């Protein structure tokens, strides 16, 4: 087990998440992609802490930050989805494209 291995995992998760965020139409599915990306951040932050700077708490706080950010973003995501669903009965980004140019 090396740092590279963890980072490789993180890269993979990040890319998968990115793919999801880019390719999904449903807002909730996009959010899932984003969560995968956060997951990658968590893994890599933990690995960085462990392998490079375990004497300092920063890495752990980054993990905590990422978890909180994920929660916060998800909550907002649900709220926004609710709002737009109420307003125009859509849950897909493709159908919300009136603002352009």
């Amino acid at each position, binding site marked *: 087990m090396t740092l590279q291995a963890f980072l490789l995992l993180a890269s993979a998760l990040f890319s998968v998440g*990115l793919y999801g*965020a*880019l*390719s999904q*139409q449903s807002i909730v599915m996009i959010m899932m992609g984003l969560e995968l990306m956060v997951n990658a951040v968590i893994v890599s932050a933990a690995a960085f802490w462990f392998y490079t700077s375990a004497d300092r708490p920063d890495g752990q706080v980054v993990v905590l930050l990422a978890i909180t950010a994920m929660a916060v973003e998800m909550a907002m995501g649900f709220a926004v989805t609710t709002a737009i669903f109420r307003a125009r009965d859509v849950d897909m*980004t*493709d159908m*919300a*494209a*009136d*603002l*352009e*140019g």
Partner: protein
Amino acid sequence: MELWSLVAAPLLVGTLLLVAGRRANRIAPFLGIGCGVVVAALAVASAIGRPSVNAPMLTGIPVSLAVDELSAVMVVTVAGVLLAVLIYSAGEFGADEPRARFFGLMLVFAGAMLVTVTATNLLVLLMAWEVMGATSYALIGFWWRDEHRVNSGNIAFLTTRTADLGLYLAAGAMLAGGAGGLALADLAQLLPGWRDAATAGIVVAALGKSAQLPFSFWLSRAMDGPSPVSALLHSATMVAAGAYLLLRIQPTGWAGVVVAWVGALTALLLGAVALVQRDLKQVLAASTCSQVGFMVLAAGTGGTTAGTGQLVAHAATKSLLFLCAGAWLAALGTKDLARLRGAARGDRVVGMSFAVGALALAGMPPLSIWITKDAVLSAALHESVPLYLTGLAAALVSAGYAGRVLMLTWSGAAPDGKTLSWQHKAPLPFLAAGAALLGFEWLSGAVWWELVLSGSVAVAGIAVTTAVVRRQDALAGRGRVLNRWLGLEFVAQRWVARPVFGLARLLARFDDRMIAGRVDRGAAAAVGLSGVLARFDDRVVDGGVRATAAIGSTVARMSEVRVEFSLERLVRAVTDGVRRLGRLARRPQTGQLHHYYAQAVVILVVLTALLIVTGLR
């Protein structure tokens, strides 16, 4: 002080009359003649007192006027002729005519001439010189409702101004050459190269003003002005100014040779032109060129005194002749020689005066021009024999045309006409006396055989022409080239018009390729217009100027059309490009979130690559 008053009086009174306009029509003649008298008195006083004045003007270049020997003669001549012409004019114009304008312009014109002949540096000279040109424009185009006369004024002004550019050149060259004050006297001390430039400039300006070759044609058109204007312009002022300037600077070296030959050739060729004119005023105009040619010849050969004499004698003679011609025009309504047969037998004062003038012009002994012209020829002989012979030939021709008009006006029955007022006639005897007698001042130092020779030449010339034209005016209209003032139109067409036509066509072709549609037609029309102008207008006497003007405006139109257009096109291309970019810049904003996502990520990746690449370097 008297010098200031001398130049200020006519300028001020003239300006006043001009500003007052119609309101002053009634008093204009009195004011004008009064002013003329004052000017004459002041001129005499200055000629005696020889004052000189100075006032600061530009950095290191003051206004300085002075009366020296040459100027003394000039101011008196100018003042005298001015007075005579003004008195005559009082009879020429009725109270309902714009007399204020006329007298105002005449006074300003004369004032400018007075400044010209008293100026000691180029700044003052140039100022007066150009004002003279502008007022001559206004005087020639005095009857402005007639487009033809206005055109004549334009041509006179533009031609002389073209030559005037020489004075600007001379001024710059003098400054660059070390004469900071632009004093005319410093001309000889300039650095060599600049001296040549300055001399060349002055010579060109002088030749233009005095209607020497190749500028002569404007004088023909200047005949469209009122007769008193011609009388003043062609005697003591304007054309005389050029001669005066040459006499003043006394060109030497190459300039002297050029000036002398131009003078001699003008005297000969324009004399020949005068020989065949049908119109009395045209005869006189051509003869002016010819006579001034003698002055120029004198200036080129160092005969300043002789040239001055010729100038003075010619001034009296020619003003007299023009006033007579004007009187006949007023009385008989024509200046066509064919219809003037016998005119001299009508009013005896006019007739006799005219005869004296014509004989003097012919160089008939013992009248003034006989003596002065001989002095000029004598100076020419000092320089070179060919020059002398040319001059002699010119003298023969002079006698010829003078004899012709004399014969024509005295033969046949007197035609009926209006009676002339006393103002018309009053100045004539005095001028005739001047024409007859003024020469004796210059008699001293003349060589007897030369005098005899030129006298006989004059007699011979008169004799021959009177014989030729007694029955029928066989000379009138002879020789296309001569009749059309040396066919300057041919020269203009060959050397100015045709090359520029080539250029115009070239530009047009260029335009054809560059520009489409409306602009194209505009260019074609411009070319067509120049073609029309070339074909027809070039035939007339002032072809050169017309063609140049047409070419100028054609080129101007071309350059505007083409350059403006291509600049505009450049600007438009930029705007179009920006417009397209503007549309393009909004394309990414599709409204589709996944497009935003993809674009953002791609750009970020590109930026990363950029950073890594630049970091590796």
